Structure formats: C-alpha cells, structure tokens
C-alpha cells in the first residue's frame, strides 16, 4: 500500500467502515510508515476534540430567552 492509497482510505478507517483484510493492510502500512500513523492518530484526535468540546456555547439565560420567544410565537400561530 502506498501513502496515497492510505490517504484514500483514511476516512473509512476513522469511521470504521473498512473490511478486516483492508484494515490489516492499512495497519501493516502504518507499522512501516510513521508519517501515515501520525496522520491517522492526529486526524482521529482532531475529530474527537471537536466532538467533545462546545465551541459555540448557548448560555442558559440566552437559551431560555430564545426558547420562550419561539414558543410564544408558535402559540400565537407564528
């Protein structure tokens, strides 16, 4: 497997949608290619960090205000 082929499979690997034989080929490639191993680990970490940290928080008071405004208008028939 080349690095380009690895890159083409990266998303499937991260999303865990590769078949077992392909996975083992990829793992074999990563054992030999430190760069691809880093790309895999750090891309997976990138997603994990974005998924687990709220970057656009909705403070409770603002949330309540917006919620009330929406519901008030729905009750009036918008």
């Amino acid at each position, binding site marked *: 497997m080349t690095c380009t082929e690895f890159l083409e499979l*990266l998303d499937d690997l*991260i999303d865990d949608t590769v078949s077992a034989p392909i996975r083992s080929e990829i793992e074999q490639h990563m054992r030999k290619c430190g760069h691809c191993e*880093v790309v895999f*680990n*750090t891309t997976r970490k990138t997603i994990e960090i974005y*998924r687990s940290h709220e*970057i656009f928080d909705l403070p409770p008071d603002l949330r309540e205000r917006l919620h009330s405004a929406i519901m008030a208008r729905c009750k009036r028939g*918008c």
Partner: protein
Amino acid sequence: MSTIQSIAGQNEQHPDLALVDKVRAGDVSAYDELVRKYERQIFRIAQHITQNREDAEDVMQDAFLKAYEKLDQFQGNAKFYTWLVRIAVNESLMRLRKRRTGKMVSIDEDLKTEEGSVPRDFADWAPNPEQNYNQSELAEILRKTIQGLPQGFRVVFALRDVEGLSTEETAETLGLSVPAVKSRLLRARLQLRERLSRYFKRKSAPAAPSGTDGALAPNKG
C-alpha cells in the same frame, strides 16, 4: 449475493415522530419538547455557517418557526432532526446572503483551494494535547481553526463530525452527492488536523529554559 442492510434502512419509528403527530393534532407543548431537544444543535450549526452570534440567534428562531409552520410538509419517512437541520442550513445561507447585500451564497463557495489536501506536518502530537490549554483558550483555538476552513468544508465537517449526521443525511441536508460529501469531509478533516498541529504538536525539548529545576541541568560551567 446478500447485501448488508445499513442501519439507515431500519423502519422502527423514531420517538420524534410521535411528538410531530401530537403537534399536528394541536398540542403545542409537544413542539416545546422538540425545540428543547434540538435548540443547542441548531444554534451551533447556525454559528458554524454564519460565524456570527446574532445571526445564529435569529436563524435558530426562524428555523424553529418555519419548521412549525411547515410541519404539514414534513414527510414521516425522514428524520425530523435532519429535516430541521436542512431548514436551519437554508436559513443560515439566506442570512449570510442578506449580510453580503444580496450576493449569492452557496455551500460551494471557496472550494477551489487544494490547500491541506495532502498532509505536510508529520509531527506527532503531545498526549491529550488539549489539556495544555484552559477551556476558553481551547475553545478559541478550535473556533479560529474551523472558521478558517472554506465554508463548504466547514459545514460538512460540522454536520457529519460534530453533529453526528451520517454521510447520507449530510448529503441530503446540503443537497450534495455522497461522493462530494466524502471528498469534502476528508479535506476538512485533513485541513483541521494540519492547522491544529501547530498548537498540539509535541514540543521538542525546551531550549535551555531558565529558572527550571536545576538538579539535572548543572552544565553551566
């Protein structure tokens, strides 16, 4: 050859559909429940697209109101959430268009760049690198980094990886083909990784720090 049925194909009724039915029958409190359930996600998506807090507030309200008004048009074979996200994406794009005084805005904008399609930074990251920053520093880094992506990549990443929509749902929501979503997702992920690397990479041994513990660093002459 037997095909593997994807989980997307299952037919069991989503709990949202029961709430939608109640709303259609005139029970507004059921809509209250749906709004509460999804308001944070819709606000986040609107922020990702408009990159502006006031716009996101307006979009969130408009999206829920529009969904309420159009509930009759909602087809029960789709997920309510995906349908709602599509409304929020359209409202967000409309809001951007207004801000840019009528200029057409689409999710295909700014996609000509090849930047970041091929990884260049191969430095390994520190273990749990996010822990080297406090919450607000980290949020700022993540915001700044994702806001630097072309819009068409940013939205795909936000829906697929942050909000957890499937590739097919992301494609349907944005009116894109599945291959287009896949290609954008890979490039978004790689570009974010590349940009975050400058904050998260393992620091090489500090160059002669002053004032650190001197027990093992006595080479001063």
